[in-house]
């Protein structure tokens, strides 16, 4: 049947030819290419992708985001590139338990630091782990991220090659975060990577993971299509941080699929600064009683950036709580999207779900689409949602200026304060300081804080 699907795919038309060629080439060299389960996982996913293709704006989940620019580009796999240690000094971080660097999607051992991890914590490249411990990987890989629902997840799954593998054994607490850096280099052709991460946090253990997407060495068309599966066992505590700060020619689609056990406490924090077209999917499933999930994010768009945040919170067990907070700052002709979907299954009584999306528009041409979507099948639940769209408050601006603070500095302070609401929710001190620095640096280049921009403070 699979073969039929692939054969049909080959006949469907020219847009698939490039993908078929890429997939055929990849299958020859893919890690674990001889494992039947992995082969099947990839092929099924590819068949699914061929069947549905890229989404269009007719698809309700993609109403505000047009991905035709991705669909019509003939991407090649990114080349394996070696960076000198000096090239990555700008991304050096301290106070982390381990750091893994991926260059064009491939793990670079020399740039990474994996030493001195406590007993019970495994951090490795997924590629290595597939080769060395396939049965361990098989337990979770591809079991949660939904290739049926999302063509980008299907595409990523078809091209599972490398990424991070994090395993924290039962009862082990790792306080310092694990830092994952994904660098894309400048290339001649349009290139793609499909980072695939698997984070398994066993019962009563704790971990924090930071994914940081950045570019090095100038702009070229790159497409990062990442999927992370985060599995949190009973009473496990996990934090996930996403930073997108690639250049403006980058397409970035990332999907975080969280599977939460009983009383697990998971937080997803996102910071979108870069990328031309960005789609940030966060999909937690609260599958055990008493789980807690915090979904927190900040997106800052300028120029013609398109930043889409698609939240899909699934309450599948009773007595769970979820809180979503997303703040957006949009300037120039940037377009932001916040889609907050909450699904409460019939069994999920006593669900407490909250959603808030606040936006600042700094120019006349900046745009935000914000859409709550509540699907509630249980009868004893509490679900609230709210969204606001506004400008920098003239009163507040004048108040700061009247004390001697310049208009530019006052705008920056107010934007920092708006951003700070999100930063304050981040539990890790290291992550908070890191995010604050990135936001501060980014705001220096935001047009909206300059007095001449837009219609602010008039």
């Amino acid at each position, binding site marked *: 049947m699979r073969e039929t699907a692939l054969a049909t795919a080959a006949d469907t038309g020219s847009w698939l030819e490039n993908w078929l060629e890429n997939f055929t080439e990849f299958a020859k060299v893919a890690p674990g290419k001889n494992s039947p389960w992995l082969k099947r996982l990839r092929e099924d996913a590819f068949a699914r992708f061929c069947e549905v293709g890229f989404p269009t704006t007719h698809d309700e989940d993609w109403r505000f985001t047009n991905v035709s620019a991705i669909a019509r580009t003939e991407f090649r796999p990114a080349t394996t590139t070696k960076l000198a240690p000096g090239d990555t000094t700008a991304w050096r971080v301290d106070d982390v338990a381990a750091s893994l660097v991926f260059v064009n999607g491939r793990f670079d051992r020399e740039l990474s630091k994996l030493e001195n991890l406590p007993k019970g914590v495994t951090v490795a490249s997924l590629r290595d782990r597939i080769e060395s411990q396939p049965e361990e990987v098989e337990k979770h890989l591809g079991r949660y991220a939904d290739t049926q629902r999302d063509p980008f997840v299907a595409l990523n799954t078809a091209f599972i090659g490398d990424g991070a593998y994090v395993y924290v054994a039962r009862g082990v607490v790792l306080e310092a975060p694990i830092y994952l850096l994904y660098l894309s280099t400048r290339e001649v052709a349009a290139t793609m990577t499909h980072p695939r991460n698997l984070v398994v946090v066993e019962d009563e253990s704790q971990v924090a993971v930071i994914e940081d997407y950045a570019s090095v060495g100038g702009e070229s068309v790159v497409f990062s299509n990442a999927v992370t599966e985060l599995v949190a066992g009973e009473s496990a505590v996990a934090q996930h941080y996403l930073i997108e700060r690639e250049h403006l020619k980058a397409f970035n689609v990332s999907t975080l699929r969280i599977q939460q056990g009983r009383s697990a406490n998971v937080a997803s924090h996102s910071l979108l600064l870069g990328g031309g077209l960005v789609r940030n999917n966060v999909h937690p499933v609260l599958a055990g009683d008493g789980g807690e999930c915090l979904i927190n994010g900040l997106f800052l768009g300028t120029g013609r950036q398109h930043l889409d945040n698609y939240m899909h919170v699934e309450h599948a067990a009773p007595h769970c709580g979820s809180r979503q907070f997303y703040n957006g700052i949009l300037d120039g002709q940037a377009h932001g999207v916040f889609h907050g979907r909450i699904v409460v299954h019939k069994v999920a009584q006593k669900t407490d779900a909250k959603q808030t999306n606040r936006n600042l528009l700094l120019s006349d041409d900046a745009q935000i689409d914000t859409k709550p979507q509540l699907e509630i099948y249980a009868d004893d639940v509490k679900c609230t949602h709210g969204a606001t769209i506004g400008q920098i408050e003239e009163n507040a601006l004048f108040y700061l200026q009247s004390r*001697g603070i310049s208009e530019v500095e006052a705008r920056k302070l107010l934007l920092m304060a708006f951003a700070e609401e999100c930063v304050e929710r981040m539990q890790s001190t290291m992550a908070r300081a890191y995010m604050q620095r990135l936001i501060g640096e980014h705001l220096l280049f935001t047009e909206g804080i300059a007095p001449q921009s837009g219609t602010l403070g008039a």
Partner: protein
Amino acid sequence: MSLLEIKNLHVTVDGNEILKGIDLTVNAGEVHSIMGPNGSGKSTLAQVLARRDAYEVTKGSILFEGKDLLEMKPEEAACEGVFLAFQYPVEIPGIGNTYFLRSALNAQRKYRGEDEMDAMDFLPMFREKLKLLEMDDKLMNRSLNEGFSGGEKKRNEILQMAVLEPKLAILDETDSGLDIDALRIVAGGVNSLRSPERAMLVVTHYQRLLNYIVPDFVHVLVDGRIVRSGGKELALELEERGYSWTEHEPAGARA
């Protein structure tokens, strides 16, 4: 040279003329009170002096130490030494009180070519001023005015004034909404800042505050014009007789 010289000031807001020819001269060391009924233009005058740009000056001039105040942005006026204690202080979540105040002080010091103050120098001075206003330093760890009571907000205004040490302090209805204890504390803070180098413009609707902050001059503002000026006894007369007579009796008749 006077500290502040306002001449024939006309100000329009959304097409309505609010100030219709104000003349006022304030010298260093003096405390002037501007009194008047609601809607007479008192707050407009205060806001124009602090350079809020929603107000359009259609005629007249304002000189501050001989410099054209109307050419200045709010932050420049502040750095030159103009301070407005707001009638409605703004709550700004996400900006810490202490951080804000040190940023403001350093912005002003930088403007004047002085060295910026680091936290080590700033904090002892800041604690002194907190004591003066009888303020809990826990409040200072919170966001700017966020969740402050009305009295705490007004005290915070005077605290900022005490730290920034302006040449001209404008108090816009600082007394409104204060109970008597808070009023005493606020007035005490203001009085401790009186000096031969500093002038104050106390805008108020009621005479009550002037029992504590005794002015050298009182001006009555009615419908955009100063209809009467006098000494502190004028305030008492207003308290007794209200404002309406000032429009009908010729100025100076009872002075």
